[in-house]
């Protein structure tokens, strides 16, 4: 079943302490999960063979940047201070969620005539060092 993205939301919390809180002014969000293959095709064979490779996940956010928003400022501070990965929770309108731990790898603030200031963030999901948990999980409440 389709979900209404306008009614979905992003929540965020720092690595230690705090609880998830809604983040305002998110224009769009996109996740990219991938698992490149490892080619193990031997010579003298007519069919390719692969092993499953290492999974990877990234995300991209487009936000209406607001310097008065404590979370937006915290994200900038995370880059500036090279902070550890923090927690991200995308809650679909239907109740399902995608949750993971990710670094902010870039944050690009832009301003243009006849528009409002925006920022684009790139996230890199990662496992916590020493953890056996996956870098991100999907919860299906449906």
């Amino acid at each position, binding site marked *: 079943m389709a979900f209404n993205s306008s009614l979905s939301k992003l929540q965020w919390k720092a690595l230690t302490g705090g609880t998830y809180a809604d*983040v305002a*002014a998110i*224009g769009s969000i996109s996740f990219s999960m991938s698992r490149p293959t490892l080619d193990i095709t031997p010579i003298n064979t007519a069919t390719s063979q692969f092993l499953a490779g290492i999974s990877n996940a990234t995300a991209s956010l487009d936000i209406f940047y607001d310097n008065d928003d404590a979370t937006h400022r915290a994200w900038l501070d995370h880059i500036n201070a090279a902070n550890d990965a923090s927690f991200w929770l995308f809650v679909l309108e239907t109740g399902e969620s995608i949750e993971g731990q990710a670094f902010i790898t870039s944050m690009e603030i832009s301003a243009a005539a*006849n528009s409002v200031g925006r920022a684009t963030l790139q996230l890199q999901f990662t496992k916590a060092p020493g953890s056996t948990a996956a870098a991100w999980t999907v919860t299906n409440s449906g």
Partner: protein
Amino acid sequence: MPGVNIEQDIRTMLVAYGGLTSAIPAARISHGYRLQDGALPALTYEISSLSQESIGGGATVRLATVELNIVAETTKAALDIVPALKVACGAGTYGVTDFDAVIWRQHVTSPASVGEGDEQQPAEVTATIDIYYRE
């Protein structure tokens, strides 16, 4: 808490600036239409589009594109009001609504003209603004 009435809040923004209401009395600033024989100058406005710009979580960012029409007897009289209208269209809290950004996109001038007989068409300046507000 009362709900957002963006049309009303736009009028609140316009009449909040004395520099504008000294040129156009607040009673002549209206949503949608004005009486054809009403006194000039006058200002009407209407929302040409309204959209949701952010996903959920926190206050929703919305974008209202608004057309403002200054109507005056002469082209000069209409254009003389434009600077005050630009100042009036500013960010702030109007009613219960936070206007985060108000962007003046453009304005177009339609000069006064004389029609059949002694009929005169007043001059109009149509301005387009974008209002990013939270609801």
